[in-house]
């Protein structure tokens, strides 16, 4: 159940950000930050202990969505988001609160998709 919620959150973050940049022509920075902020606000207001990792996953996956549409298409972003969700589940306990770990995971995920796709 936890992995399913993580993957769904990852798709929301990655695919959502990509759609905001490609369909609505938002700047990647605005798309990633506003989507993450909208998801994070309810978790700041209410104590939702069971699903506390959702904002982290959406935030991390939103970096995948910041990728250029010259390199990625909708399908590749979807696959990258699913892969990010799986990787997050495997390694998030080792992040140790160090900043940039979500972004680096997203970066390695994007590079994996590039390697596999070429």
């Amino acid at each position, binding site marked *: 159940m936890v992995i399913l919620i993580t993957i769904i959150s990852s798709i929301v973050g990655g695919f959502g950000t990509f759609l905001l940049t490609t369909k609505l022509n938002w*700047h990647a*920075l*605005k798309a*990633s*930050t*506003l989507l*993450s*902020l909208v998801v*994070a*606000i309810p*978790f*700041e207001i209410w104590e939702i202990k069971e699903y506390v990792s959702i*904002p*982290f996953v959406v*935030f*991390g996956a939103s*970096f*995948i*969505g*910041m*990728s*250029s549409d*010259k*390199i*990625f298409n909708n399908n590749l972003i979807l696959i*990258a988001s699913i892969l990010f969700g799986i990787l997050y589940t*495997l*390694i998030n*306990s*080792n*992040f*140790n*609160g*160090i*900043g*940039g*770990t*979500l*972004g*680096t*995971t*997203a*970066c*390695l*995920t*994007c*590079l*994996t998709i*590039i*390697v596999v796709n*070429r």
Partner: protein
Amino acid sequence: MNQESRTNIIPLLVLGSIHILFLLYIITPAIGWLSVLGLIPIIGYKHLPIKINKLNISEIGLDVFSFSLGILFTIWIIIKFDTSPVFASALIGSLASFIPNTVLGIKTKRIQNISHAKLAIYAGSFAGMTGLKYFPDILSLIITAIIGGVIYNLLRNSFTGLGGKLGSIGFGAIILYSLSATLLTIW
């Protein structure tokens, strides 16, 4: 190998080092020897634009300043309002994203730097998500901001369009500061 391709190796080495440190310190403790698979994505670098940014002191200064703004304000929000790191970083990034890129519709080279400054603020906010855990004093914050700003400047024109580049810069700043601080302590 000509002069240009030699200098273009610098961004490659910088991002490569950050990713290898990530594999060593974050991935290996989680999945052991399987983390070797994490070297495969590095092959993907060759499919992305790599171009060294020409040395420009004012640009480096702006990147360091912007990166430090990102770190400081993110840490301040986390401590002052007791928020989650995600909320603090997303808030700082959102505020930065509303800084206009043009002044009176004019888009000059200097104004183009504003666009980079906004991204450097966002990269700094990732480093700031660490909170005060790895920063014992203000000097450690300043050193991390300088490292982060310089890394951002080196990667400015490289790996464009690759998601997670800014996060890698934030992580690189933290891990390089921690490693250098540890080495200095041992010395």
